[in-house]
């Protein structure tokens, strides 16, 4: 058994960490936070140049042709560095959807741009408050043109193309839903950036009015493809969350060692020690579950649905827990704008909601465990 990443994969992780330490420094993150730009374009280009964006894309489509395990280690570092770029939207969602459901022409046309970072993609799924559900999709495609409103769309205002879930029929059935590729620079697209919990990641409303839409995957199978895309994204996002949780834990640990109160490091008080120990526990469980997800993703195992839900829940809990209690360890300083604690807190809570929230994945997990047990 080798339930760990290979030496090469670990080297890739180290490389990504070094690169991001330099190019996604707290200062760079804060430039986006403070509104200088909706994302760090230079960093995005750099990541493309390093080959990090297309690491899981086959060479024939312009990627590095490595695999999903490689993408997992990069995702972890993205989370750790709070990289202010549309990595999850473009790579976990748009690229994965096209790799999964695109025909050869679509892959040839679209993947090279996504893999290099030339093109930014996203997934336009949500239309109203609540979790992913076919019943919540009202956008329609008729005669090859899409109309409807999607909100929120992560990185929606900076993306070049969107994979859009829409109804291809009017029967109101789950099988009326298909996926489409839409050029966001095309006519009929109106976009608006919306204020959100984590200003280092963009969120938008997109109104589509009679926009040309290109079918992605078989008509009527949109929801089942989407489910598989979300599962894959859940594993990748889990690594991003684990990276964030780890960094928040480290920050808390470091502060507890440095900060003196009552004549001794606050990390010598059991209240603080045990808070950090509990953070370590949740971060460790989340990491192990993410590894399970990575194994299932990389081997396309039958366990992927349950592994993805497990990884997602565990990572969401860990990042929220570590980010929240990192502030607590820092005390008043942790609640200043100046300290970086709130960046992790914002990111943790924002990531917890993307792809569907905890209660959604809890429900999914039980359904999946039940059907496996029944099988």
């Amino acid at each position, binding site marked *: 058994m080798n339930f760990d990443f290979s030496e090469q994969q670990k080297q890739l992780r180290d490389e990504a960490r070094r690169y991001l330490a330099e190019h996604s420094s707290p200062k760079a993150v804060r430039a986006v936070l403070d509104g200088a730009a909706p994302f760090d374009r230079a960093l995005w280009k750099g990541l493309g140049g390093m080959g990090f964006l297309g690491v899981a894309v086959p060479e024939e489509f312009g990627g590095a042709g490595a695999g999903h395990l490689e993408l997992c280690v990069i995702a972890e570092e993205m989370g750790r560095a709070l990289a202010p770029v549309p990595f999850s939207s473009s790579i976990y969602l748009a690229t994965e959807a096209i790799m999964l459901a695109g025909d050869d022409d679509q892959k040839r046309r679209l993947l090279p741009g996504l893999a290099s970072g030339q093109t930014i993609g996203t997934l336009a799924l949500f239309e109203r408050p609540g979790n992913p559900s076919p019943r919540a999709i009202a956008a329609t495609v008729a005669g090859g043109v899409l109309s409807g409103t999607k909100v929120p769309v992560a990185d929606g205002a900076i993306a070049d193309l969107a994979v859009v879930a829409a109804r291809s029929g009017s029967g109101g059935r789950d099988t009326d839903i298909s996926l489409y590729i839409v050029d966001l620079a095309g006519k009929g697209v109106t976009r608006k950036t919306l204020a959100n919990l984590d200003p280092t990641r963009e969120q938008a409303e997109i109104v589509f009015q009679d926009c040309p839409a290109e079918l992605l995957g078989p008509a009527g199978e949109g929801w089942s493809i989407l489910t598989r895309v979300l599962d894959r994204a859940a594993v990748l996002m889990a690594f991003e969350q684990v990276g964030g949780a780890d960094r928040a834990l480290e920050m808390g640990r470091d502060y507890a060692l440095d900060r003196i109160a009552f004549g001794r490091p606050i990390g010598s008080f059991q209240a603080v020690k045990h808070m950090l120990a509990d953070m370590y526990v949740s971060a460790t469980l989340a990491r192990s579950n993410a590894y399970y997800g990575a194994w299932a993703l990389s081997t396309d195992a039958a366990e992927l649905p349950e592994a993805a839900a497990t990884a997602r829940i565990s990572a969401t809990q860990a990042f929220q827990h570590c980010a929240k209690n990192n502030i607590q360890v820092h005390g008043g300083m*942790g609640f200043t704008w100046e300290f970086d604690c709130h960046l992790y807190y914002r990111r943790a809570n924002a990531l917890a909601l993307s792809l569907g929230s905890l209660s959604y994945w809890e429900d999914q997990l039980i359904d999946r465990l039940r059907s496996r047990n029944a099988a």
Partner: protein
Amino acid sequence: MNFDDTPQEAAFRSEARAWIDANAPRELEAQLSRPSVGRVKLDGIDIITASKAWQKTKAAGGWACLHWPKEYGGRGASPIERVIWQQEEGVYDKLSGVFLIGQGMCGPTMMAYASEEQKRRYLPPLASGEEIWCQLFSEPSAGSDVAGLRTRAEKQGDEWVINGQKIWTSGAHYSDYGIVITRTDPTVPKHKGLTMFFLSMKTPGVEVRPIKQANGGQEFNEVYFTDVRIPDAQRLGAVNDGWNVSLTTLMNERLSIGARVWTGFSEIFAFCSDFMTENGPALDDRAVRSRLANWAVRHSGLKYTSYRSISALSRGERPGPENSIGKLVSGSMMQDIAAFALDLQGAAGALTDPELAEAAGQFQSMLLQSPSGRIAGGTDEILRNIVAERVLGLPGDIRVDKDMPFNQVPTRGRKS
């Protein structure tokens, strides 16, 4: 066991109610009734201006600082009358926020330690809201461990020269006066070398800089002291007895029992009643119900704990540190409630624009504000220590610096 007033209490209540009916700024009622997180914002009028106006009206009618002696601008009322007043004042109480620290903490300290002449000069305008006071205690290196403060005061002739930095000073930017605790002898153990003063915030050398908070708000300040000179007459209590003076201040904090309990429960219950999931109102979901029920009993428990404290006050007893549990319970509860409300909203829960977000974005604000609820005014950890030590009688933490000269206490960790 009953919720009824005694005849005297009932008389007081109806007098208060009648006066409030006749004098309260009704035009602000609707705005003040909106749920708000953190500092209240009003449309068209500055909250300080509105607060000063209402406070002035109250002072003129004899309803300011009820429990203070009349000669200092109060009414000489009993603690229970104060609670009744608070209940009757209702939402207008939100206009008292800016005076809370001055009237609740600085005033009693002045009352205990200032000269008679000073009390007659400073207390009435404090009571009437003409002058606002702040409290300069915390420092960057002295948060939970307030006695670890480093701001120095050195005697030069009949004056003291203050140098150093305070932090988390609420309202410093609109305050006229402040009480400040300083270190006057760094060669003795930390609690023994402190001295308290009061001073005008306009004294040369005092500089106030706002702190931007994690949620983007600015409610607190840093206050820098550079060669600030004040006369010895502005000393409160004996030289090097400042720790005991500060205990007076902090004790008084505990006497102000809120008749209202804010935990976010009413808000989340209302939200779950209204919010429609695919399967109907969120309130029909058994997972939601279970969470709500748990918050309901904590909310109710805090509410009736405060009623029990009020009953004790009514009997003339002093409420104890038992009240520390209010913030301990509500702090993490609000954080949980906010996260749960966002969870129900799914991806849209990340949107913060009040025009777009569900429930006018109140849970998004609550989420970003809530970490401070577990820190400001005593961290959860300090509060648990207070409950354990003062209520349950368990031993204090081991204090390695207790008998150590302050200038030998380490200032950095990691094997330093």
